[in-house]
């Protein structure tokens, strides 16, 4: 009685439930990922909010990048290339990328906390990243460069920490998504970090390396007399000239450095030899990729090997096939300041959990020894001379003994030269080293040096 019907009804119900199960499987497993990622899904924004990406702070604890209403904002465009942009569509750069694991909370989590979080399905809490950059100095450097394109790098020589790492033109990291088309096609290439990615001919600033190589090899001393009577020399049929006429026709090597004599340095370079010069350049980091948290391009000593004498000569005074970055030249200056020990540059000092617990602490490091302390001392005195009597006068700061070297690098035929300056201060117990590059701006002494003066003067007040 009704038994068969009831059984059939039961089967029908089971069939119905099975159908519902398959439908649930369809929506949750098959369509799940696309539904979850669908832009109409309010969970995306809510989860971003909840996930709380960590903040980035500057040297003084000021927040310079944070997530507000689901969007990543930067305090100032001057920090754009250091911070990098954080875009769902176009990727991440800068510190946002280098420390993405820590900022998103994926890395650096103590095991116990991680297990607890996995068990409960709690969203990750991002960690805060503290930079070595001083925002005030960075913005000052930004203003000092004006409309020029270029870079300013300021380093604490005692640790290798960068107080300023400015690349111009800048942009606003928060609006990268909206302005991607114009930003990526802008011929000023604002998305590029000139500090560590930009490669330029160093010009006369490289003379510091040549001088270091020569003095360290014992070939020459600052006091060694040299002569440059005509302002030119011919090597294997190729005529090399000084950029400016020398005040005297004979002087010592120190003044050859201060007055940036291409003729003297071409000959010094020839006597140092290609192998040795390349070797010393390599010790400073040239020809390799500097270890650095942000995107870095490998620098280059020369493309041609073995080097014909003309190439060696022009390399010795800063042309040739040399390609260096502003960061690299700052490292050169800092090495000279540190008695010949090459510092390891860095921008991130600490990673902290929101409650203040320190997850990572950067300890200053060294990349090796480039030159001996006496050599370094000799270089420092020559650099001081360059500021006192030489072409780097515009970098002088009242009341402080500053050392530096200008550079005016040939850029592209028909375009003005690139304007360079590297410097250290105070010369006797150096605290800071700086490198300034201004693209297509002309004389280093006229353009880059004054910028360095402004930044260095302020920095000496700030950094004890």
């Amino acid at each position, binding site marked *: 009685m009704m038994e068969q019907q009831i059984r059939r009804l039961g089967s029908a119900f089971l069939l119905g439930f099975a159908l519902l199960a398959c439908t*649930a499987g369809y929506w949750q497993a098959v369509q799940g990922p696309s539904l979850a990622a669908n832009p109409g899904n309010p969970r995306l924004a809510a989860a971003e909010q909840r996930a709380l990406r960590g903040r980035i702070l500057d040297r003084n604890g000021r927040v310079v990048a944070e997530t507000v209403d689901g969007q990543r904002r930067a305090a100032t465009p001057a920090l754009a290339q250091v911070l990098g942009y954080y875009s769902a569509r176009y990727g991440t750069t800068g510190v946002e990328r280098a420390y993405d694991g820590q900022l998103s909370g994926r890395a650096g989590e103590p095991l116990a906390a991680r297990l607890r979080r996995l068990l409960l399905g709690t969203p990750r809490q991002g960690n805060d990243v503290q930079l070595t950059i001083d925002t005030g100095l960075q913005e000052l450097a930004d203003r000092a460069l004006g409309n020029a394109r270029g870079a300013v790098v300021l380093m604490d020589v005692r640790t290798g920490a960068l107080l300023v790492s400015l690349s111009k033109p800048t942009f606003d990291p928060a609006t990268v998504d909206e302005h991607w088309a114009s930003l990526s096609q802008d011929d000023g290439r604002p998305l590029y970090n000139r500090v560590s990615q930009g490669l330029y001919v160093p010009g006369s600033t490289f003379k510091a390396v040549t001088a270091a190589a020569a003095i360290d090899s014992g070939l020459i001393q600052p006091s060694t007399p040299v002569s440059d009577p005509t302002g030119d020399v011919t090597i294997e049929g190729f005529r090399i000239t000084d950029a400016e006429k020398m005040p005297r026709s004979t002087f010592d090597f120190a003044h050859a450095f201060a007055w940036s004599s291409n003729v003297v340095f071409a000959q010094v370079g020839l006597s140092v030899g290609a192998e040795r010069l390349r070797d010393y350049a390599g010790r400073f980091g040239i020809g390799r990729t500097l270890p650095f948290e942000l995107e870095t391009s490998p620098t280059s000593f020369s493309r041609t090997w073995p080097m014909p004498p003309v190439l060696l000569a022009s390399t010795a005074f800063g042309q040739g096939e040399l390609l260096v970055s502003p960061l690299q030249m700052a490292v050169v200056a800092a090495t000279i300041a540190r008695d010949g020990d090459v510092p390891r540059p860095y921008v991130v000092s600490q990673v902290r959990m929101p409650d203040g617990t320190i997850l990572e602490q950067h300890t200053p490091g060294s990349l090796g020894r480039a030159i001996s302390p006496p050599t370094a001392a000799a270089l420092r005195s020559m650099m001081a001379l360059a500021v006192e009597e030489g072409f780097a006068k515009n970098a002088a700061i009242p009341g402080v003994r500053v050392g530096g070297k200008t550079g005016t690098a040939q850029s592209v035929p028909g375009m003005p030269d690139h304007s360079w300056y590297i410097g250290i201060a105070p010369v006797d117990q150096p605290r800071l080293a700086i490198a300034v590059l201004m693209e297509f701006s002309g004389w280093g002494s006229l353009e880059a040096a004054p910028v360095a003066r402004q930044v260095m003067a302020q920095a000496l007040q700030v950094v004890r």
Partner: protein
Amino acid sequence: MSWRGTELGLLVLALLPALCGALLLAQVLERPLTDPRFRPLFALAGLLLLCHVALAALRFRGDQVLLPLVAALTGTGMVLVTRLVPALAPRQLLWATIGSSVMVAAAVGPWEVRLLERYKYSSAAAGILLVALTLVFGLDPNGSGDRLWLGTPALAFQPSEVLKVLLVVFLAGYLVDKRELLTAAQLRLGPVRLPPLPYLAPLLAMWGLSLALLIWQKDLGAAILFFGIFLVMLYVAVGQAWYVAAGGALFLLGSAACYALFGHVRLRVAIWLNPWLEPQGRSYQIAQALYSLGSGGILGAGLGRGYPLYVPAVHTDFPFVAFAEEAGLAGALALLLLYALLVTRGLQLALLAQLPFNRLLATGLTAVLGLQTMVIIGGNLRVIPLTGVTLPFISYGGSSLLVNFAILGVLLRLSHEEAVRRLRATGSAEGAADSVDRRLAEPPVGRALQPAPGTRLGHDRQWRMAPLPERERGTMGYRRWPQGPLSPCGRGGWG
């Protein structure tokens, strides 16, 4: 005192998910377990255990699986309410308390299920009256636009919930009563045999009237449910498979008519067909539900960690989706399994029942639970358009909870009566001591169930479902039949 060890064991197992849910929520919300918001959940667990104790103490001998199944579902429902709208949890507990009291009272009270057969016409009348009342005095306490509630804004209940039970009672009684008459072929339309109109007509009238009223009230979910219940019970009682086909055709006809006539039907169908047309507008609810499902994935977002509240009215209309988002496909499948087990168990009880009325009633009540579950989950998953029915035992809703517990009480009562019959048949001394059980031995009411002349009273062997010879298949199991002009003996029956 009866030892109900299986029930106790299963009950403890069934309450574990709810307790784990409380633990998880406590961690996620970072509150201690003693926080007031968890009290309704623990109280519910205690309440259900108390029901078990009451059943055992009152010598209940019925099914031991139903209560744990319902406990698992109700517990899950309470966890969901605690997670979604904690302020409503105490009210859910209140209705669960009332419901479970009614359930226990129905299970062990001094009555018999077959008594309901007497009140079939009263049930029908009461049902129609309720619907009429709602038409006139209906309230809309939730502001949803449909006036489907009766009572006061503070304490309102949905008559359609009671109505479906009344319908089942009426149908069970009527169909059993008129069963042989309905199956006697009086009209032939080619290969098809129609039951005699005088007996079919009242059925159709009753059914048509309730449908019309429901559709007028825009309670589409209840209309679908009623249609389904009617069809199911008719099929089970009379056994003609073509009824299902005819019913399906009628359903399509009726749906088309409704679609053509009513704007709100067209809207529901439009939203169902393409939820992405106006995802911020009118199909917002189902679009959000789909996002919710997808975001859950296979393992879920985690209890308290998903965003089910983006779905409007999630605790009443979409609790399945909320659970699926946070417990994932795994949780959704587990929930479906629980409901499937509930329906299966109910139908097994129906098969165990000896009296045809009991059998049909159990089938009908189980079908109510099953159909309602499938309609709402189907709507949640976009298999069918969304309707306003509740998910039994899980949705937030007092009248729903109360009526479903009452249904459970009747099913438990049925299983108890059958268990007692079996005990008595095996000559157990315990069974004889109970006064209620003694009354069970007396002949039941109703013309159709008169014992054949010559049989002995007080002995239930006649009601044993022994396998029958072929020619007596259609005799409802009775070896002897009051002879009369309408006797179906020898007519080849049905089936």
